[in-house]
Protein backbone atom coordinates (compact mmCIF):
# COMPACT_ATOMS: atom_id res chain seq x y z
CA UNK A 1 0.00 0.00 0.00
CA UNK A 2 1.25 3.48 -0.84
CA UNK A 3 0.25 6.18 1.62
CA UNK A 4 0.08 9.77 0.40
CA UNK A 5 -0.16 12.48 3.03
CA UNK A 6 -0.33 16.28 2.85
CA UNK A 7 -0.37 16.89 6.61
CA UNK A 8 -2.65 19.07 8.71
CA UNK A 9 -1.50 22.36 7.19
CA UNK A 10 -4.36 24.74 6.42
CA UNK A 11 -3.47 25.39 2.76
CA UNK A 12 -4.35 23.15 -0.21
CA UNK A 13 -1.97 20.77 -1.91
CA UNK A 14 -4.08 19.84 -4.92
CA UNK A 15 -0.99 19.30 -7.07
CA UNK A 16 0.11 16.28 -5.06
CA UNK A 17 -3.37 14.96 -4.35
CA UNK A 18 -4.42 14.92 -8.00
CA UNK A 19 -1.13 13.35 -9.11
CA UNK A 20 -1.57 10.70 -6.41
CA UNK A 21 -5.14 10.06 -7.52
CA UNK A 22 -3.89 9.49 -11.09
CA UNK A 23 -1.20 7.17 -9.68
CA UNK A 24 -3.96 5.06 -8.15
CA UNK A 25 -5.27 4.40 -11.68
CA UNK A 26 -1.80 3.70 -13.07
CA UNK A 27 -0.79 0.93 -10.66
CA UNK A 28 -2.37 -2.15 -9.09
CA UNK A 29 -1.07 -1.41 -5.61
CA UNK A 30 -3.55 0.30 -3.28
CA UNK A 31 -3.09 4.04 -2.85
CA UNK A 32 -4.54 5.77 0.23
CA UNK A 33 -4.59 9.56 0.35
CA UNK A 34 -4.81 11.83 3.39
CA UNK A 35 -5.84 14.97 1.51
CA UNK A 36 -6.13 17.62 4.26
CA UNK A 37 -7.41 21.02 3.15
CA UNK A 38 -7.33 20.18 -0.54
CA UNK A 39 -10.02 21.66 -2.77
CA UNK A 40 -10.54 18.85 -5.29
CA UNK A 41 -11.18 15.51 -3.60
CA UNK A 42 -9.76 12.27 -5.05
CA UNK A 43 -12.08 10.16 -7.23
CA UNK A 44 -10.08 6.96 -7.63
CA UNK A 45 -8.10 6.41 -4.46
CA UNK A 46 -9.39 5.74 -0.96
CA UNK A 47 -9.06 8.96 1.03
CA UNK A 48 -9.90 10.98 4.11
CA UNK A 49 -9.16 14.62 4.77
CA UNK A 50 -7.70 13.77 8.16
CA UNK A 51 -6.98 10.65 10.15
CA UNK A 52 -6.57 10.55 13.89
CA UNK A 53 -2.96 10.32 15.13
CA UNK A 54 -3.48 6.62 15.94
CA UNK A 55 -4.95 5.95 12.51
CA UNK A 56 -2.06 7.79 10.82
CA UNK A 57 0.48 5.73 12.76
CA UNK A 58 -1.28 2.58 11.64
CA UNK A 59 -1.40 3.69 8.04
CA UNK A 60 2.29 4.60 8.02
CA UNK A 61 3.11 1.22 9.59
CA UNK A 62 1.07 -0.61 6.94
CA UNK A 63 2.45 1.40 4.03
CA UNK A 64 5.21 0.04 1.84
CA UNK A 65 6.18 3.56 0.81
CA UNK A 66 5.06 6.98 2.09
CA UNK A 67 4.67 9.94 -0.27
CA UNK A 68 4.47 13.10 1.82
CA UNK A 69 4.58 16.85 1.75
CA UNK A 70 7.87 18.04 3.24
CA UNK A 71 6.40 18.84 6.63
CA UNK A 72 8.54 18.18 9.66
CA UNK A 73 6.02 16.05 11.57
CA UNK A 74 4.99 13.93 8.63
CA UNK A 75 8.51 13.23 7.42
CA UNK A 76 9.69 12.45 10.95
CA UNK A 77 6.93 9.91 11.53
CA UNK A 78 7.78 8.02 8.38
CA UNK A 79 11.51 8.06 9.05
CA UNK A 80 11.04 6.96 12.66
CA UNK A 81 8.97 4.02 11.44
CA UNK A 82 11.73 3.30 8.93
CA UNK A 83 9.49 3.69 5.88
CA UNK A 84 10.94 4.66 2.50
CA UNK A 85 9.97 8.28 2.07
CA UNK A 86 9.15 10.12 -1.14
CA UNK A 87 8.98 13.81 -0.49
CA UNK A 88 7.16 16.64 -2.32
CA UNK A 89 7.67 20.18 -1.00
CA UNK A 90 4.75 22.57 -0.83
CA UNK A 91 5.51 25.73 -2.78
CA UNK A 92 4.51 29.32 -2.07
CA UNK A 93 3.93 30.14 -5.75
CA UNK A 94 1.10 27.58 -5.91
CA UNK A 95 -0.51 28.82 -2.70
CA UNK A 96 0.50 25.66 -0.87
CA UNK A 97 2.60 27.26 1.84
CA UNK A 98 3.42 30.69 3.30
CA UNK A 99 7.01 30.38 2.13
CA UNK A 100 9.35 27.85 0.51
CA UNK A 101 10.95 26.41 3.61
CA UNK A 102 9.64 22.92 2.77
CA UNK A 103 12.01 22.84 -0.17
CA UNK A 104 14.92 23.17 2.27
CA UNK A 105 13.88 20.11 4.23
CA UNK A 106 13.17 18.13 1.07
CA UNK A 107 16.59 18.91 -0.38
CA UNK A 108 18.30 18.41 3.01
CA UNK A 109 16.80 14.93 3.41
CA UNK A 110 17.45 13.99 -0.21
CA UNK A 111 21.09 15.06 0.18
CA UNK A 112 21.39 12.91 3.29
CA UNK A 113 19.97 10.02 1.30
CA UNK A 114 17.03 9.73 3.68
CA UNK A 115 14.27 10.50 1.17
CA UNK A 116 13.62 10.70 -2.55
CA UNK A 117 12.75 14.16 -3.83
CA UNK A 118 10.11 14.09 -6.58
CA UNK A 119 11.22 15.89 -9.72
CA UNK A 120 7.89 16.15 -11.51
CA UNK A 121 4.65 16.11 -9.61
CA UNK A 122 2.64 13.82 -11.87
CA UNK A 123 1.50 10.21 -11.69
CA UNK A 124 4.57 9.07 -13.66
CA UNK A 125 6.88 11.29 -11.61
CA UNK A 126 5.53 9.79 -8.39
CA UNK A 127 5.88 6.29 -9.76
CA UNK A 128 9.52 6.91 -10.69
CA UNK A 129 10.22 8.24 -7.22
CA UNK A 130 8.44 5.32 -5.55
CA UNK A 131 10.64 2.88 -7.49
CA UNK A 132 13.78 4.74 -6.36
CA UNK A 133 12.53 4.71 -2.76
CA UNK A 134 12.75 0.92 -2.73
CA UNK A 135 16.54 1.31 -2.74
CA UNK A 136 16.75 3.55 0.28
CA UNK A 137 18.09 2.09 3.46
CA UNK A 138 16.49 3.75 6.45
CA UNK A 139 18.95 3.32 9.25
CA UNK A 140 17.98 2.97 12.87
CA UNK A 141 18.62 5.77 15.34
CA UNK A 142 19.38 5.54 19.00
CA UNK A 143 18.08 8.24 21.33
CA UNK A 144 18.77 11.48 19.49
CA UNK A 145 21.64 13.52 20.85
CA UNK A 146 19.52 16.66 20.90
CA UNK A 147 17.19 15.19 23.50
CA UNK A 148 20.16 14.35 25.73
CA UNK A 149 21.44 17.94 25.38
CA UNK A 150 18.02 19.28 26.22
CA UNK A 151 17.76 17.10 29.34
CA UNK A 152 21.22 18.19 30.46
CA UNK A 153 20.41 21.87 30.00
CA UNK A 154 17.14 21.43 31.88
CA UNK A 155 18.99 19.92 34.84
CA UNK A 156 21.46 22.82 34.87
CA UNK A 157 18.62 25.32 34.75
CA UNK A 158 16.80 23.56 37.57
CA UNK A 159 19.83 23.96 39.77
CA UNK A 160 20.09 27.64 38.87
CA UNK A 161 16.45 28.24 39.67
CA UNK A 162 16.48 26.36 42.98
Amino acid at each position, binding site marked *: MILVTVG*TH*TQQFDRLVSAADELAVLIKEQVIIQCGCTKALPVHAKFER*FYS*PAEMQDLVKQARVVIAH*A*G*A*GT*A*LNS*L*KLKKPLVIVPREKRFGES*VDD*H*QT*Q*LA*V*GLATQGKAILVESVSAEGLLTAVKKADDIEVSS*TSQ*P*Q*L*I*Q*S*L*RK*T*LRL*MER*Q*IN
Partner: protein
Amino acid sequence: MQQILEAFDGHELFFATYYSVREAEVRSLAPAYFTKNIGYNLWRMIKAFPWAFQILRKENPDLVFSMGAEIAVPFIYLAKLMGKKTMYIESWCRVENLSLAGKLVAPVVDEMWVQWPQLAEGKRTRFEGAIL
Protein backbone atom coordinates in the same frame (compact mmCIF):
# COMPACT_ATOMS: atom_id res chain seq x y z
CA MET B 1 7.44 19.06 19.58
CA GLN B 2 6.05 15.59 20.15
CA GLN B 3 9.49 14.12 19.62
CA ILE B 4 11.00 16.50 22.16
CA LEU B 5 8.45 16.04 24.94
CA GLU B 6 10.17 13.06 26.50
CA ALA B 7 13.04 15.38 27.49
CA PHE B 8 10.57 17.05 29.86
CA ASP B 9 9.56 13.88 31.70
CA GLY B 10 9.08 14.57 35.39
CA HIS B 11 8.36 18.27 34.90
CA GLU B 12 4.94 19.91 35.17
CA LEU B 13 3.89 21.26 31.80
CA PHE B 14 1.29 23.40 30.13
CA PHE B 15 0.94 24.34 26.47
CA ALA B 16 0.13 27.52 24.60
CA THR B 17 -0.42 26.81 20.95
CA TYR B 18 -2.63 27.26 17.87
CA TYR B 19 -6.07 25.80 17.32
CA SER B 20 -5.83 22.80 14.97
CA VAL B 21 -7.34 19.38 14.29
CA ARG B 22 -5.02 18.08 17.02
CA GLU B 23 -6.56 20.08 19.85
CA ALA B 24 -7.87 17.04 21.73
CA GLU B 25 -4.52 15.34 21.42
CA VAL B 26 -2.74 18.37 22.93
CA ARG B 27 -5.21 18.59 25.80
CA SER B 28 -4.67 14.93 26.61
CA LEU B 29 -0.99 15.65 27.24
CA ALA B 30 -1.22 18.70 29.52
CA PRO B 31 -3.40 21.75 30.28
CA ALA B 32 -3.47 23.93 27.17
CA TYR B 33 -4.27 27.43 25.98
CA PHE B 34 -5.19 27.97 22.33
CA THR B 35 -5.25 30.89 19.97
CA LYS B 36 -5.68 31.43 16.23
CA ASN B 37 -2.69 30.89 13.97
CA ILE B 38 -0.76 34.15 13.93
CA GLY B 39 0.96 33.62 10.58
CA TYR B 40 1.99 36.94 9.07
CA ASN B 41 -0.97 38.74 10.62
CA LEU B 42 0.46 41.73 12.47
CA TRP B 43 -2.74 42.45 14.36
CA ARG B 44 -2.89 38.89 15.69
CA MET B 45 0.76 39.15 16.70
CA ILE B 46 0.04 42.34 18.62
CA LYS B 47 -2.98 40.76 20.36
CA ALA B 48 -0.88 37.73 21.24
CA PHE B 49 1.21 39.80 23.65
CA PRO B 50 -1.52 40.59 26.23
CA TRP B 51 -2.79 37.02 25.80
CA ALA B 52 0.67 35.60 26.50
CA PHE B 53 1.18 37.99 29.41
CA GLN B 54 -2.03 36.87 31.11
CA ILE B 55 -1.05 33.23 30.74
CA LEU B 56 2.48 33.77 32.03
CA ARG B 57 1.17 35.70 35.03
CA LYS B 58 -1.40 33.04 35.85
CA GLU B 59 0.78 29.97 35.33
CA ASN B 60 4.08 31.51 36.43
CA PRO B 61 6.30 28.93 34.75
CA ASP B 62 10.02 28.66 35.53
CA LEU B 63 10.82 28.03 31.90
CA VAL B 64 9.30 28.91 28.54
CA PHE B 65 10.26 26.50 25.79
CA SER B 66 9.31 26.83 22.14
CA MET B 67 10.00 25.38 18.73
CA GLY B 68 8.20 28.20 16.95
CA ALA B 69 6.57 29.36 14.98
CA GLU B 70 5.41 32.93 15.51
CA ILE B 71 3.84 32.19 18.88
CA ALA B 72 7.34 31.88 20.31
CA VAL B 73 7.93 35.62 19.91
CA PRO B 74 5.50 37.08 22.49
CA PHE B 75 6.11 34.27 24.96
CA ILE B 76 9.88 34.38 24.88
CA TYR B 77 10.15 38.17 24.99
CA LEU B 78 7.65 38.48 27.85
CA ALA B 79 9.19 35.58 29.72
CA LYS B 80 12.59 37.29 29.53
CA LEU B 81 11.11 40.54 30.86
CA MET B 82 9.46 38.60 33.68
CA GLY B 83 12.77 37.01 34.67
CA LYS B 84 12.00 33.50 33.45
CA LYS B 85 14.33 31.09 31.69
CA THR B 86 13.79 30.61 27.96
CA MET B 87 14.74 27.98 25.40
CA TYR B 88 14.15 27.70 21.69
CA ILE B 89 14.79 24.86 19.27
CA GLU B 90 14.54 25.80 15.61
CA SER B 91 12.26 23.45 13.72
CA TRP B 92 13.90 20.46 12.04
CA CYS B 93 12.47 21.67 8.76
CA ARG B 94 14.65 24.82 8.76
CA VAL B 95 17.78 23.67 6.98
CA GLU B 96 19.41 26.62 5.24
CA ASN B 97 18.16 29.60 7.20
CA LEU B 98 16.38 30.40 10.45
CA SER B 99 12.65 30.99 10.49
CA LEU B 100 11.51 34.56 11.12
CA ALA B 101 10.54 33.50 14.64
CA GLY B 102 13.99 32.03 15.17
CA LYS B 103 15.67 35.23 14.01
CA LEU B 104 13.47 37.34 16.28
CA VAL B 105 14.04 35.34 19.46
CA ALA B 106 17.76 34.65 18.93
CA PRO B 107 18.92 37.95 20.53
CA VAL B 108 17.04 37.35 23.80
CA VAL B 109 16.58 33.63 24.36
CA ASP B 110 18.79 31.90 26.98
CA GLU B 111 19.41 28.70 25.03
CA MET B 112 18.92 28.07 21.33
CA TRP B 113 19.52 24.99 19.26
CA VAL B 114 19.36 24.43 15.51
CA GLN B 115 18.99 20.99 13.95
CA TRP B 116 21.24 21.27 10.91
CA PRO B 117 24.95 22.04 11.27
CA GLN B 118 24.98 24.69 8.54
CA LEU B 119 22.70 26.87 10.69
CA ALA B 120 24.84 26.95 13.82
CA GLU B 121 26.40 30.32 14.48
CA GLY B 122 29.04 30.51 17.17
CA LYS B 123 27.79 30.93 20.72
CA ARG B 124 24.27 32.05 19.95
CA THR B 125 22.90 28.97 18.24
CA ARG B 126 24.16 25.46 18.94
CA PHE B 127 23.98 22.37 16.81
CA GLU B 128 23.92 19.27 18.99
CA GLY B 129 22.17 16.81 16.76
CA ALA B 130 18.59 16.68 15.60
CA ILE B 131 15.44 14.94 16.65
CA LEU B 132 16.13 12.20 14.13
